[in-house]
């Protein structure tokens, strides 16, 4: 058993932390703003509309928080892929590449 943590554990840990706190922070700001200036929630769906982000509207900030959260696992896989590659672990960098390709295909299917 290695005493030092492998690169892949460290790098994934970092990505998870960034994603967790960034998304948590954005959602918190969005919810607080929405309490100050409430919007009704009949069928609100605004994919990737960040234009009004700078107006401090609650919805685009909440949207960004959700997007950050959904993309964190995708980044996690990408970071694992790079880490395995740097550790010369060919087999698992291929496995990570496979998962990454499936996720990208999923996005393409979803957008269609």
């Amino acid at each position, binding site marked *: 058993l290695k005493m030092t943590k492998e690169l892949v554990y460290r790098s994934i*840990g970092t990505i998870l932390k960034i994603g967790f706190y960034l998304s948590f922070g954005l*959602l918190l700001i969005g*919810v607080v703003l*929405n309490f100050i200036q409430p919007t009704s929630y009949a069928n609100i769906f605004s994919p990737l509309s960040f234009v009004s982000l700078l107006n401090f509207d609650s919805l685009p900030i909440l949207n960004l928080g959700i997007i950050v959260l959904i993309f964190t696992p*995708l980044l996690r896989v990408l970071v694992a892929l790079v880490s395995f590659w740097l550790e010369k672990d060919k087999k698992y960098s291929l*496995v990570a590449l496979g*998962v990454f390709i499936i996720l990208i295909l*999923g996005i393409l299917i979803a957008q269609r």
Partner: protein
Amino acid sequence: MESLLMSLGGVIAGVFGSLLGLGGGILIIPMLTLLFHLPIHQAIGTSLVCVIATSTGAAMVYVENKKSDIRLGMSLELATTLGAIVGGLIAGLINQKTLTILFSALLIYTAYMMSKKKKKTVAEQNNVTTASYQVVHLPWGMGASFVAGNLSGLLGVGGGIIKVPAMYLLMKVPLKIATATSNFMIGVTATASAFIYYFRGDVNILITGFTTLGVFLGAIIGSNLSNRIKTEHLKWIFVVVLIYLSVKMLFQGINLHFLIF
């Protein structure tokens, strides 16, 4: 006021989820459909985002103390992500009532699995690292993972209820590692189908924002409580709640929800 209740519901789901090792989706979907009358497709979309939040928080801890087997997790994710995409697409073709009835069945299954869950022994809890065991029956594990992913994409839950027994019983992975690895995988699995729900318009930004924030808070509270609370009694309360919710969902699905109870 309603949005405050949604966040509160998220907190409760997050606390119970982290105390009992569930993704939280199993509580969030009944809450959003039965209490807030959200269409079940939107409830599932919201739940998937919540499940990613829970998994990200849990994985952060498990990766830190090396309880997640990243290599095993990554291999099984090949199957869970494929299953999740298929499940997410199938959900788009199924009507509300059928999905509600399917969810009711999942609730009963979860109640059954929870009631069987034994206390973990101390020896099993500690003294395990990701290097001290040999994984067997990987192809069977892949099959089970595809089913778990499918369930996740179709009904918006984490699918740990299938993956953990598959890893523990079938692949002979120690229970603690199996649980940690399952939690680690859930985020990636849920993301695969979350994209489908998001672009289909089934992720209501406001409702999802409020509920997910609650889940974040609940998960933080829950992980701090877990060393001080005996989950044995909690488990049985939860089994009763799950059975109750299952009956309610079933009645909703077969148009008998006017029956008051």
